[in-house]
């Protein structure tokens, strides 16, 4: 075990670190650090304005679509309490979707899969909605619609949890 090479290296460890990095390297690092510092606030500002824009667009779209669909039978026409729930869930869903969208850039494949799942539920919801006016048991359909919203919300919560964990894992393994 007591090997001459290992012992020699251990005793003369310093003699092996003889090379020097070039003198200008610190200047380069400093420059990069300055660049990063300047970029950061701009980036945050951009993100915030992007988020604000999304909120405005969503809001406007919601109002517009709401107006267009006013002639359709709404959940509120059937049951006020279910309508309240529906609106409540819809708000939470939009919020969660926005959070999910922020992670999208880092995990594009995962995001694609998640949105596919959500899209199916969304389609189901729309189908129920078109069925609603002609349905003989409207309360039943409305119940199904609210349940659909609830499932969407649960799914989103799970997805956020997963994507968060993936993100954490990635960050830890970066080192």
């Amino acid at each position: 075990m007591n090997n001459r090479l290992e012992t020699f290296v251990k005793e003369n460890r310093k003699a092996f670190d003889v090379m020097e990095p070039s003198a200008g390297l610190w200047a380069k690092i400093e420059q990069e650090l300055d660049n990063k510092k300047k970029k950061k606030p701009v980036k945050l500002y951009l993100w915030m304005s992007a988020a604000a824009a999304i909120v405005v667009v969503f809001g406007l779209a919601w109002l517009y679509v709401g107006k267009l669909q006013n002639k359709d039978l709404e959940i509120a026409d059937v049951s006020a309490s279910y309508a309240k729930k529906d609106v409540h869930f819809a708000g939470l869903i939009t919020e969660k979707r926005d959070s999910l969208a922020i992670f999208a850039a880092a995990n594009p494949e995962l995001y694609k899969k998640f949105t596919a799942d959500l899209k199916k539920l969304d389609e189901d919801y729309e189908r129920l909605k078109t069925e609603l006016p002609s349905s003989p048991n409207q309360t039943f359909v409305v119940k199904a619609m609210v349940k659909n919203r609830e499932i969407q919300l649960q799914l989103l919560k799970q997805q956020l949890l997963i994507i968060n964990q993936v993100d954490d894992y990635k960050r830890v393994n970066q080192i």
Partner: protein
Amino acid sequence: MQGSRAAQFELYKLYAKAMYNVALRILNYEEEAEDVLQEAFLDAFTRIVDFRQETTFGLWLKQIVINKSINYLRKRKMEFVSTDEISEVPDEDSFDDYEVQLQAEEIRTAITQLPDGYRVVLSLYLLEGYDHEEIAHILKISENTSRTQYMRAKKKLKSILEQKGMRDE
């Protein structure tokens, strides 16, 4: 949060040379080693909030430097070939029986002449002080491969040194 520039420079002065040598031993190219050094310091400074006080800053930085260096090597399409199949037992040969005067400078130069795979394992074990379990983890190879590679690297190193010794005589 980012710490003052003066403090960063102090850290740089303290660690740059040692870290540069770590990277250089793995990469064998000065330019790449400098790139790694630059990236590693930038990373360390921008992620200093992630730094947990379980280890020293030096060890943490060294880990970053080594990982980055290995990534650079991998980009060069170098593979840490598994040698598990060829399980010849490498003879535990020691340097005791040989004539060459062990000179740090000679050993250092001889290490640079080793093939990538040998050089990396040998550097990590002999100079950076990692054990085979840790090397296996860093290079994503088996512990056994790390051991075998190290033994072979040592053998090769010995032959390089012997050749050099003969030429000098």
